[in-house]
């Protein structure tokens, strides 16, 4: 809708348009400034301070960051979070893609409704709810999964009480919960792959895996990148599933950055230190997004 179309009074119309524009954006702008931009800036400032309104705050430079990176425990927690992110993203996105490929064929619409329902239901129910269910699935002696393992003659697994197993169990639940989201996105992306090219490939007798690698994958690669970034941003913030399944244990084996932020910031009121940890998390997210932008730009050029 351009102002030039009305030839009589372009400037007046343009001004009215601009006025309406600012007015319509105003509520969002004010709220966004108050609850997103200003807090982000303040957190970045707090990260360089020792904050204590009672005794008095002071600048401490990079001390909070130094404390984070020199402490064995917090480095392990950072490592836990990165490990969780790597595996959760890899499996969520790849399994989501495999499921989408499996469902990308002709079927009755009620069947498609059923598939979307069962794979997407875990996505829309809070992890806080389903994690409690999974606590009982993962139980040692009374757990549902161990019951079935014993029925088929396998030894039970200490899903949540073994420090070497607990993170894997959390990743398994995370994939159950989130992979349906990526499946839905990939189904839509696959429908955009030009059919005539695929049909031509079939006529030429190109094997299915080669069709996928040469035609389908390049075509949907922007969506794959989007999914990887989206999954990473979510996984780096992992909180409630761990809080409910293991409370970060056994030991610190499943503790994540988000749990550490809450413990330091709201448990021991180390506000500056907690701010520094959240800045580290945000920088990780920004880096992943930047890498994705670079890689996908290069990919598209090829």
């Amino acid at each position: 809708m351009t102002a030039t179309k009305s030839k009589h009074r372009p400037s007046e119309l343009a001004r009215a348009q601009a006025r309406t524009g600012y007015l319509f954006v105003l509520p969002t702008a004010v709220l966004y400034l108050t609850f997103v931009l200003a807090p982000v800036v303040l957190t970045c400032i707090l990260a360089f301070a020792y904050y204590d309104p009672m005794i008095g705050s002071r600048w401490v430079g990079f001390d909070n960051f130094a404390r984070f990176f020199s402490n064995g425990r917090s480095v392990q927690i950072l490592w836990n979070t990165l490990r969780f992110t790597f595996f959760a993203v890899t499996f969520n996105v790849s399994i989501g893609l495999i499921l989408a490929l499996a469902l990308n064929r002709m079927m009755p619409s009620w069947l498609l409704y059923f598939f979307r329902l069962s794979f997407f239901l875990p996505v829309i129910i809070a992890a806080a709810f389903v994690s409690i269910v999974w606590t009982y699935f993962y139980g040692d002696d009374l757990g549902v999964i161990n019951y079935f393992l014993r029925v088929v003659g396998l030894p039970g697994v200490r899903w949540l009480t073994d420090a070497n197993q607990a993170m894997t169990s959390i990743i398994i639940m995370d994939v159950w919960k989130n992979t349906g989201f990526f499946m839905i996105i990939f189904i839509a992306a696959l429908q955009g792959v030009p059919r005539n090219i695929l049909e031509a490939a079939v006529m030429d007798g190109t094997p299915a895996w080669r069709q996928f690698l040469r035609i389908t994958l390049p075509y949907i690669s922007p969506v794959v990148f989007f999914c990887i970034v989206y999954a990473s941003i979510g996984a780096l913030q992992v909180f409630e599933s761990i809080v409910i399944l293991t409370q970060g244990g056994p030991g610190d084996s499943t503790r994540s950055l988000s749990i550490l932020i809450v413990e330091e910031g709201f448990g021991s009121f180390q506000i500056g230190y907690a701010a520094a940890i959240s800045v580290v998390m945000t920088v990780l997210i920004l880096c992943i997004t930047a890498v994705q932008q670079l890689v996908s730009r290069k990919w598209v050029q090829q």
Partner: protein
Amino acid sequence: MQTRAAKRWIDWAIILCMVLLAICMLLPFLWLFSMSFRPVADAYKMPPSFLPPSLDFSNYVAVLSSKVPFVRIYLNSVLIALVVTVGQLVTCTLAAFAFSRLNFRGRDALFFILLVGLMFPAQVTILPIYLGYAKVGLINQPIGLGLMYLTSSFGVFLMRQFMLSQPKALEEAALMDGAGYLKIFWRISLPQLRPALSALGIITFTQTWNYYFQAKVLLGKQDQMTLPLAMDVLRGYMGAGNLSVVMAAMSMSILPVVLLFLIAQKFVIEGITMSGIKN
């Protein structure tokens, strides 16, 4: 090269596998629903059941009469989710109309700044918000949690995507006829956007219903909690014995979201793909 018959056979084999997998995906939900109808004494009886043994609502009654103020907590969740949903429908639609239909200076820069917000996790905003809320007395106030989310970058982005995919002819004609922008927005754009509004509404409601990290930080008192927090509290109160009662509370807690999705699956899927694909 595969024959046509072989291909059809493979298709059906894959669909059969997917049906089995889909049923497995549903098992946790079937289990919790079945458990909510089991007598408390049978909660740990093996084998686990995935269908309700009877329709005995005594566990549900037990939740409502427990020491945890479940009804109050439920109402908190409903209040926050409704306020946020209505708020976002208004603010995001207005902003999206401006970003997709109107020309003004700084428009694209503003939109870019708003999009950057998609990358900031709640973790990086929660400390200052907590400190600010403590000053103005909004800690332990459910409405405080709602206030934070009256607009969202995602909502504006989603609505803008929808609006850009709509034809502008009708709006331009109305403009030529001398209609004001407010009238065009209200009379012409909004009615066309009904599917988009449904999508955003359902996604926002669900998201708000599920907030945990923010709620845990801001809402500590039992009276002021939301449902995701209450589950863990209830589990503690009930001890290991009353698993069935916790599952009854859980069934009631996930009900609105499940119903919304059953009824309006199409809109949710459309909204999700709209935001994912056209990035």
